[in-house]
């Protein structure tokens, strides 16, 4: 990380007597790619505009490159910090090149016209974002992705060390969204500092070097993506029930979001559950039970298996095949679910566990496949044991889920 180039301290903004931003502080270091996230109306745009001086602030100081912002001339700030606004309207049929050319404004004296160098910089920036071939096209008639890349070229051509982007990926499809993120990251690798407001949390966590979480006009969390994007933070700010985990396929932080249904625990006769098995059916069962807030345990899983990983994402204890204490994990009378059992070891564990369980549910196919010995048969024939599909089992055990 490089040196600190911007310090905004205790920024406060009110609009019509309502506090939009309250004492928010943000420090930027050279080469950072900061993603500003937060729910709608959290004040993300306002914060950036207040730091830039587009929105007037009632309190707080901004120090840019070691000098208070107030001591800068307007054009000097524009040479240090570029701001790309959200949903910019370009009227009157201006062409892409004409719009990008306006970014050279801070470098020209009032009587001057753009010089050769300015055209060269504009061309370079438009080539970088891949829109030079669109230079004579009217911006209003471009597609959303092309338009955003033209506007990105525009802030780049302003040649500032710091760039603020207000939702540049809004209303873009996945390909263009990712493209914008990639451009930004490669820019920060070249030493630019970028602050970007975005709504796609996983994308932000993947590309940004730092996240700032804003809610109700205050900064709730600030730090590395994995520190900021936690289930607790998301629940507190977005009111979103989620599980944050590292996607084993991509290796990036990912989100599993769910709607929290009224917890079954409160209805009284609820018991915990142990899920035994691998496969998609077991996973589905685990998700459904987790969302209803039922105390869970999983087993018998081999370390680093998909089942074990899944359980760790959900924060559910996992027991190995030798360990038979899974029923104590839930801390109450426990129901055993045997779905997606793949091998003899798992089946043996299932049979052993079934002795202590209050009720046992098992897939019909599983029973057909693994019931060989008399002990197996007597277990299956017990009154507490039911051969049902997983949906029917859930229905029977917990009512309508």
């Amino acid at each position, binding site marked *: 990380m490089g040196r600190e180039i911007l310090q905004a301290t205790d920024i406060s903004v009110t609009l019509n007597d309502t506090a939009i931003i309250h004492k928010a502080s943000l420090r930027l270091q050279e080469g950072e790619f900061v993603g500003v996230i937060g729910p709608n109306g959290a004040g993300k745009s306002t914060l950036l505009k207040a730091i830039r001086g587009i929105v007037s602030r009632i309190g707080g100081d901004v120090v840019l490159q070691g000098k208070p912002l107030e001591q800068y001339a307007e054009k000097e700030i524009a040479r240090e910090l570029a701001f790309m606004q959200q949903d910019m309207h370009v009227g*009157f049929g201006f062409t892409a090149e004409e719009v990008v050319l306006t970014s050279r404004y801070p470098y020209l004296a009032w009587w001057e016209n753009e010089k050769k160098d300015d055209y060269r910089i504009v061309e370079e920036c438009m080539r970088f974002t891949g829109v030079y071939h669109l230079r004579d096209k009217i911006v209003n008639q471009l597609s959303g992705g092309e338009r955003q890349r033209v506007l990105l070229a525009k802030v780049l051509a302003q040649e500032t060390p710091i760039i603020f982007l207000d939702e540049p990926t809004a209303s873009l499809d996945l390909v263009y969204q990712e493209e914008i993120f990639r451009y930004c990251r490669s820019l920060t690798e070249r030493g630019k500092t970028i602050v970007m407001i975005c709504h796609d949390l996983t994308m932000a966590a993947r590309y940004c070097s730092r996240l700032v979480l804003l809610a109700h006009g205050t900064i709730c969390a600030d730090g590395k993506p994995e520190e900021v994007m936690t289930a607790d933070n998301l629940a507190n700010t977005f009111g979103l029930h989620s599980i944050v985990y590292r996607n084993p396929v991509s290796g990036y932080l990912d989100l599993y979001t769910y709607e929290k249904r009224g917890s079954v625990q409160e209805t009284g006769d609820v018991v915990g559950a142990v899920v035994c098995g691998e496969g998609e059916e077991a996973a589905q069962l685990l998700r459904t039970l987790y969302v209803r807030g039922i105390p869970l345990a999983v087993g018998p899983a081999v370390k680093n298996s998909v089942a074990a990983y899944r359980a760790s994402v959900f924060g559910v204890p996992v027991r190995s095949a030798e360990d038979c204490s899974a029923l104590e994990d839930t801390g109450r009378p426990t129901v055993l679910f045997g779905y997606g059992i793949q091998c003899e070891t798992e089946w043996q564990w299932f049979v052993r566990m079934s002795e202590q369980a209050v009720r046992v549910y098992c897939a019909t196919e599983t029973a057909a496949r693994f019931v060989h010995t008399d002990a197996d048969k007597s277990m299956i024939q017990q009154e507490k044991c039911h051969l049902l599909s997983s949906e029917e089992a859930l229905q029977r055990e917990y009512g309508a889920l």
Partner: protein
Amino acid sequence: MIQSNWGKSSMLMVLVIALASLMMMALYMGQIPVPASSVFHDWALRLGWNVSWGESLTPEQNAVLWYIRLPRICVAILVGSALAIAGAVMQGVFGNPLADPGIIGVSAGASFGAVIAVSLGLTSAGMFYMPAFAFIGAFASVLLTISLTMRGGKIPTMSLLLAGVAVSMLLGALTSGILTFMNEYRLKEFLFWMVGGLDYRRWEHVYLAIAPILIGMSVLCLLSRHLNVLVLGDVEAKSLGLPVVWYRILFLGLASVITATAVCVSGSIGFVGLIVPHIMRLLIGPDHRLLLPASALAGALFLLFCDTLGRTIMPPTEIRVGIMTALLGAPYFLFLLRRMRRHGGAF
């Protein structure tokens, strides 16, 4: 739209040549016949060339040419270019292609000033009273509109438009109110001014208008690059380091001054400020560095054309230029609007 720079600059050349030719034609067309050859003969003599062809002008022709037609042509060119360039600037400042100088109260203020001058009977005291009152009225109403809108160092465009409409309506009501107390002779005098015309314009009118209009237009053309940035909106302009309020006031002020000057020498002439910039934008694009000079040239061309047509189409009656611009302009404008709707309103 013309794309190449070469095409754009040749477009300007075409406008200059067209204007010059139209000036020549306007000089010898009219009720008193002045043959083209005599016009050239006279020009040549004045330039010090000794020519043998063509007849020299009779004293009557000379008077018509030098004291009636030429000042009238000059006023038409000044007023036409001023209205068109002011229209282009207003549309840029408001980011709205339907804005024109009238929208922030210039015309209503000028009419109000004029009606006061008429009702006080000052028009007979001197020919400059009415223009002076019109100018003061126009400028005062613009100041009123801007000061009504300004809040905490900001001028929101939408409020400015609405305030302009409100101020215009108020002044319109006052003007009508004063008119009801006027006698018929004065009423007619005011209506004559209202319609907008270029007849009986003398060199004095040219002297009156030339300095503010030429200076205003030059400054506007010089600053046109800033208008390109201002058009992109407040946030964009501000983040590029442009002092938005200062430039907005400057542009509005300059546009108002030249419009007010134009209105006070010609009465209010509609549609030039609306249509000419619009057509020029379609032809050469929205870059104000080209749009402003092109609009000025085309505005001069359009007004001179309307005036010449108006005074030659059915002699001996003259159709006043305000009527001609509206007659030619309104249908064309409606055509543009229809076309715009078909193309989904790209402008």
